[in-house]
């Protein structure tokens, strides 16, 4: 009965879609800016992610089957198919969960194992997941990884398991997992801030990948905090999540089109939280 009351009371609020600002009043909106001009594709971020997030090592056979678990993969594209040699080098793209504001993965999970947190993250609750794998089917970036096997024994033979990070679980077979923006670090930082009755400061903590990146290509921060480095970067490159009416953008209209900021597959209206800065190369005759 009370629930019915609640329904009637907050009706208008519950009927808000993301166009009207959605249901959430974000405390934070964690986001990233990745500079492809700086990225050298060295994999440091990826390995740091393995170390931080208890990612399983699956071995060659399963890797060949596509059972790999790297939450953060560094993609490498060759841009000049016609040339005899790749004369301008490779195009590297670190791709992790984009933590979409309108995530296609969220509404399709039958048991709400994946949902939207007040921090603007796509949460994945491992022990609620029943492994229907609909979320990954619906993820345009294919950045969700499924535990096809039980990797605990094979991936962490004694005493390798002593390295496991106690702040998050080791996922067992049948569970979907993905990049969480190192939610355990976020959690710790927020708890710390709360204990000191303050808000989380920018740069107080960062994700494992951003921390490891030798060229500082990855910037992590709170998009709600106007002072944070990431917010500034988004601003300088005139990339914004929402337009004047507060509707999520599926294309940016920049005053200065030369600026490098863009979001991958933005046109699908997924409202990603990760902005990429375009790769730069000299134009040589």
């Amino acid at each position, binding site marked *: 009965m009370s629930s019915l009351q609640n329904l009637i009371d*907050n009706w208008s609020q519950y009927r808000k879609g993301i166009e009207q600002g*959605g*249901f959430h009043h974000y405390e934070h909106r964690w986001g990233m800016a990745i500079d492809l001009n700086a990225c050298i594709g060295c994999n440091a971020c990826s390995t740091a992610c393995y170390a931080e997030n208890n990612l399983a090592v699956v071995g060659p056979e399963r890797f060949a089957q596509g059972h790999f678990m790297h939450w953060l993969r560094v993609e490498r594209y060759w841009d000049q198919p016609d040339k005899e040699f790749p004369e301008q080098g490779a195009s590297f793209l670190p791709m992790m969960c984009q933590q979409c504001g309108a995530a296609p993965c*969220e509404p399709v999970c039958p048991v709400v194992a994946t949902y939207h947190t007040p921090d603007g993250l796509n949460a994945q609750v491992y022990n609620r997941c029943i492994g229907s794998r609909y979320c990954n089917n619906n993820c345009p970036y294919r950045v969700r990884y499924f535990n096809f096997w039980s990797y605990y024994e094979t991936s962490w033979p004694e005493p390798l398991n002593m390295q496991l990070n106690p702040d998050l679980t080791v996922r067992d077979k049948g569970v979907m997992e993905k990049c969480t923006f190192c939610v355990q670090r976020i959690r710790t930082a927020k708890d710390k801030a709360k204990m000191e009755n303050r808000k989380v400061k920018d740069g107080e903590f960062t994700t494992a990948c951003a921390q490891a990146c030798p060229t500082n290509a990855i910037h992590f921060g709170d998009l709600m905090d106007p002072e944070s480095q990431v917010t500034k970067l988004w601003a300088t490159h005139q990339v914004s999540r929402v337009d004047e009416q507060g509707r999520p953008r599926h294309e940016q209209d920049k005053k200065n089109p030369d600026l490098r900021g863009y979001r991958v597959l933005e046109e699908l209206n997924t409202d990603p939280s990760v902005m990429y800065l375009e790769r730069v190369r000299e134009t040589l005759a």
Partner: protein
Amino acid sequence: MKKSHRLLGLFSNFEEATKAIYDIRANKVSGVSVKDVTLISPIEHPEVEEALGDRGVHVQFFTLFGGLFGLIGSWVWISAAQATFLVQPQGGKPVVTLVTNFVLNYEMMILGGVLFTLIGLLVGARLPSRPGTLYSEKISLDQIGILLEVNEPNLAPLKSLFHQHNVVEIREEIIR
């Protein structure tokens, strides 16, 4: 007031049986009205049932109620559940998504309708019950039966009536 005897006539010829009922209807036998007649037939048999005059059926009301109940009930339930949910799997959608909910409401409407129709059937057809002692396998095979509840005096005339319409077999019992 309670009748004393129960009488069943088995006919192999549907036409004759129909005629017999029309005779009863025409009060050929005093004190026996067509209302007392129960027709027991192997197949669904409109022609003969005409003879009994129209007897009402009320299943549809069960169905209607069931459908509405399913529709509205499920709408309230689902929306309320969504509203009081711990977290919101939004994907940018509102919390209470009417369109998607309607899909479920639609299914629930049909389910409610079907279930209550079943109940309606059981209630309306007085099932489950017992076939009764007079019941004979022949009915389920190919014979049609006319069952009446009558008093002592009416027995003889009825039997003769049945015999006019060359009844195959007559069974009777005393109601106690």
